[in-house]
C-alpha cells in the first residue's frame, strides 16, 4: 500500500459523493431535448464534472429504465441522438430533488453541530 495525500483522498471520496448526483443533474437538464456532447458541456459548465465515458452509457441506461426518451435528429449535417426526460423521468426528478434537499439540510445540520 502506498500513502495517498489528503488531497487525493478528498478527490476520491468526492467522486463517490458526486456519482449519484449526475442522474439528478441529467434529469434536471433534459426538460429540453439535448444531445450527449452538448449535455456534457452544459453539465461541466454548471460545475457537475462528469466524463463522457460515464455520461453516454448512463443516458442509455436511463432511457432503458424509461426515465428518458430519445429521438434521432437528422436535420443538421451530423445526425445526433437527442434525449429528453419522460413523464416518469420528471416525476423521478421531483422526488430526487426533494431527497437531495433533505440530505443537504441534514448534512448542513450535522456539520455545523460538529464544527462548533
Amino acid at each position, binding site marked *: 500500500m502506498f500513502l495517498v495525500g489528503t488531497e487525493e483522498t478528498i478527490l476520491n471520496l468526492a467522486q463517490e459523493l458526486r456519482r449519484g448526483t449526475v442522474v439528478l443533474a441529467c434529469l434536471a437538464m433534459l426538460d429540453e431535448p439535448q444531445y*450527449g*456532447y452538448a449535455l456534457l458541456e452544459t453539465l461541466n459548465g454548471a460545475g457537475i464534472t462528469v466524463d*463522457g465515458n460515464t455520461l453516454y452509457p448512463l443516458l442509455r441506461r436511463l432511457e432503458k429504465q424509461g426515465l428518458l426518451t430519445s429521438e434521432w435528429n437528422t436535420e443538421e449535417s*451530423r445526425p445526433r441522438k437527442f434525449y429528453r426526460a419522460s413523464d416518469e423521468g420528471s416525476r423521478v426528478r421531483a422526488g430526487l430533488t426533494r431527497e437531495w434537499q433533505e440530505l443537504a439540510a441534514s448534512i448542513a445540520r450535522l456539520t455545523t453541530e460538529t464544527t462548533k
Partner: protein
Amino acid sequence: MTTPTLTERYVDAVVRRIPADQRKDVADELRATIADTVEGRDEATPEEAERAVIIEMGDPIRLAAQYADRPLALIGPDFYPTYIRLLKMLLTTALPIVVVVVLVIDLLDHKNAGQLIGTGIGAILTVGGQMIAWLTVIFALIDRVKRQDAVTKSVEWTPDMLPYPRTPDKGGAAAWATIGWYTFLVLAIMFQTTAPYTADDGRELEILNPQLWNGWIWPIIAGLIAMSVIEGFRIVMRGWNLTLVLVYTAAEALFALPLAWIVYKQMILNPEFVDDVNGDWTTPAAVYSGAALIILAVSVTEVFKRFRALPADR
C-alpha cells in the same frame, strides 16, 4: 479500400462487445459524439484532437461493459470465496495426490531420477493448469447464469435464510486422506496390469495374480470405489450418520472379506512374481494368515471408528 480512421476503429472495438440489436444505434451515437467532442477541442490538427478525445474515452472494453451494463469481473463477490476455497483445496490436496500417484507409477516402472523429476513437474503443470482452468470456467459460467437469475427472480431476503453457524469439520481432512488412499489403491491395482516388474530372466510380470481378474478382484475394486464415494458424501454432509456408516460397513466388507480370503488362500500374488522374488525360499503360510488377520483387524477398526464418530444425540 481506405484505411479506417481512429474513430472507426474505436467505435468498432466498442460495439462488437455489446448486444447486436444495440450495435448500430450505439455506433452512430458514439461517432457523432466523438466528432462533436473533436470539434470542441483546440488541438493543432484534427488528428491530434481525435487522438486526445479517444484517449479520454478510454479502454473500449471498459466502455462496452458500461453500455452493456455488464460486470467487469469474471467471478463476482457472491462466488469468489467458494471459488478460492475450492481452488486451494484442489491445488493443495487433489494435485499432490495425483502427482504422487503418477510418480509412484513411474517409480514402479524403474524410471531414473531425471525422468521422475520431469514427470513430476509435467504433472504439476498440466494437471494443476487443468484444475485452475476448468474451475475458473465453471465458476465464471455459474456467476453469469446466477446474475441473470437474480435480476429476473430477485428473491427477497429474510432473516430465516440465515445459515446456522458451522462448527469446524474436524474429520474433513481425514476423509480427504481416505479418499486419496483408496483412489491410490485402485490406480495401483489398475497400473500393475501393465506388468511393471521385470524378472531376473527379463520377463515382465504382473504383481497380482492375473487369475484374480476372473472374479475376486472385482468386489475389492468395487468396495474401494464405494468407500471413496461414501467418504465424499461424508465431506459434503460434514459428518457421519447411521445410514452412511451402515453403507460404509457394507462397502468395507465387500472390500476386506474377499481380500483377506485371497491373501489367506495365497491367491493374491502372481506365483511367477513370488518365485522370482523369493528364489529358493518359500514364504511360510503363517505370513499369509497373519496378513489376512491384519486386513480384517484394520477393517473392523475402520468401521468401529466410524460408528464412534456418529453424533451422540442420535
